[in-house]
């Protein structure tokens, strides 16, 4: 988790020009870091490439829009990193 968090935080800092020390495990990508959907495409591209995965963003968005999930479940960094770890593990299974 911590190595995933460090990698994701570095990607966000570099991609979105956000000071690295302001990015915390509890940071909400949208509400706290102010990353909009367009900037998040660049973040998603970098994460997908770095971890060799394809984050199911459309599925996550649909679940949020339908009230089946909250944005916190996917876009608070510690939760996002847990999902990334799951996707990486599934890839290697």
């Amino acid at each position, binding site marked *: 988790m911590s190595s995933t968090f460090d990698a994701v935080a570095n990607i966000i800092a570099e991609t979105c020009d956000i000071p690295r020390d302001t990015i915390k495990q509890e940071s909400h990508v949208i509400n706290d870091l102010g990353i909009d959907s367009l900037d998040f495409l660049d973040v998603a591209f970098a994460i997908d490439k770095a971890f060799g995965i*394809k984050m199911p963003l459309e599925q996550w968005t649909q679940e949020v829009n339908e009230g089946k999930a909250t944005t916190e479940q996917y876009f608070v960094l510690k939760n996002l990193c847990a999902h990334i770890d799951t996707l990486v593990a599934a890839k290697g299974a």
Partner: protein
Amino acid sequence: MRFDYFQMIDRIVDLDLDNRTIRTQADVPAASTVFEGHFPGYPLMPGVLLLETMAQSSGWLIIGVNGFKRMAFLASFSEAKLRSFVKPGDVLDVSATLLHEGSGFARTKAQIRVGGKLSCNAEMTFRVAEFPNAELRAHMEKAAATLGFPLEIPVHG
């Protein structure tokens, strides 16, 4: 190339789904009102239209990869370089490579060569979504046939 219809591509030369690449060609018109303003006495193809030409080529690649099920909408570009002037009558050899197909987005790398020389290049990000209505899909099907899109288009998308 028809500036007034924003139709930048004239031909799809090759669509390679295995390697996720496309090659297209575009003939810059010898005369256009665009050149009367850009620039008077020194006509040049505007850089934004070169970017659009690369975007449209990338878009056809993305549509090809997803089996004509979804539309590509330009969202951003980066690392754009306009390396040489493009003039009326030039033939543009455009190529694009799909760098990544994400969930609801895609990233490509595209370039234009004129006379074999690299003229411009960029990386582009697209939102990829269902065709928003039947009218747009029908237009794209018609354009695909005109351009020589080399794949059978699914009847129901």
